[in-house]
């Protein structure tokens, strides 16, 4: 093979990698939270049975789900400056990620809501709760509990996919990898290390999601 592996570069640039990893965790963490919020609101709005509103939301979901994330990212990152809106790369990435996660979350949350039996809602109405109260107190929690495994495994996929945002030079893990690689020419070693880094980050989020589910539902999700 005639190639000498040199993993020492990783230790030399450890601080950059750590920074990158923290940035990845921060961006994906915020985007996941916001995306879930978007999903809950959108799924709730679809319950209103307003034709135009539901149509718009459906269009949003289909467009996002049937085009690549990278193209959405470019659309926002290159598009916003054309509208004279200047924001740093990581914020553009955050917006794109949130929009993307939101579309998938809407679909999953809606499936959860549809699985709630009519009797529950009627019982809520019989108690004199308003529509919003029924949604908030009767429907939402059991619905989220039902789809929790689907939701979190989708979130893990997004966390892995977030490596893509390095392309617009948001300074997260994959970007730092590119930076160090271009200074040291140790591409293979660095990307091998970063790949393991993503495995660890995904594992971290898995543990986190399990803790959150214990906290909120007081019961382990059926995984």
């Amino acid at each position, binding site marked *: *093979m*005639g*190639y000498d592996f040199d993993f020492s570069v990783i230790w030399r640039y450890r601080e950059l990698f750590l920074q990158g990893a923290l940035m990845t965790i921060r961006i994906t963490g915020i985007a996941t939270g916001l995306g879930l919020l978007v999903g809950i609101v959108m799924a709730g709005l679809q319950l209103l049975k307003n034709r135009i509103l539901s149509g718009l939301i459906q269009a949003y979901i*289909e*467009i996002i*789900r*049937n*085009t*690549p*994330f*990278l*193209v*959405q990212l*470019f*659309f926002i990152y*290159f*598009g916003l400056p*054309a509208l004279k809106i200047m924001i740093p790369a990581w914020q553009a990435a955050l917006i794109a990620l949130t929009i993307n996660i939101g579309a998938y979350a809407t679909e999953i949350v809606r499936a959860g809501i549809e699985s709630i039996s009519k009797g529950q809602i009627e019982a809520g109405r019989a108690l004199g709760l308003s529509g919003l109260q029924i949604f908030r107190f009767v429907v939402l929690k059991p619905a989220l509990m039902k789809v929790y495994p689907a939701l979190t495994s989708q979130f893990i996929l997004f966390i*892995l*996919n*977030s*490596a*893509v945002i*390095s*392309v617009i030079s948001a300074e997260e893990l*994959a970007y730092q990898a590119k930076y160090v690689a271009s200074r040291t020419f140790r*591409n*293979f070693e660095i*990307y*091998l290390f*970063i*790949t393991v880094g*993503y*495995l660890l980050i*995904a594992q971290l989020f898995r543990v986190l999601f399990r803790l959150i589910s214990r906290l909120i539902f007081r019961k382990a999700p059926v995984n």
Partner: protein
Amino acid sequence: MFALIKALQWTITLSLIAFTGGGIIGMLFTMMRIADNKILKRAAQFYISFFQGTPLLMQLFLIFFGIPIILGYDVPAIVSASLAMTFYASAYLADIWRGSIESIPRTQWEAARSLGLSWFEQFGLIILPQAVKISIPPTIGFLVQVIKNTSLTSIIGFVELTRRGQILNNVTFEPFLIFSMVGFLYFVICYPLSLYSQRLEAKLTIESL
């Protein structure tokens, strides 16, 4: 627009390579996964969880930078792109197909065995035809993922639809126009497939009631 449509051909070509190659390798790993041999099972499990647990972009980079180390010379971007997408697709397809096969009730295997069929007859004549039917909707759904994810190969320099769009944008500075068109072209291909997959799935649900 013409340049984009021409680039679209590369996106489709790469998707087809990844899907066919991934299908063949995926089939191999599906068989390993359902085999009775523990070592084969573990190996397949490891392979699948590695490719499902790491970002596709990292897999692309590892192969892109790894091939020159092994071979000693560079290969065109389409080769690394095809290889990475093939491995990636095979891991997911293997899992989808394993799920389909395992969703067939055990009693079907037992009934087939009681009829005196060999393992291959049990699998090929009884289990497989049923499993294939179940696996078609998620497989088509995954094809949409593959098509979308070929956009990542633009990052290692393969000129497909997304990369062509980027190049055009650098020249024209019309990001909304260019990336709307790029997105539209992906949508035109992916949306019918998504719809078809959903419809098949709905049909399957009705039949199983």
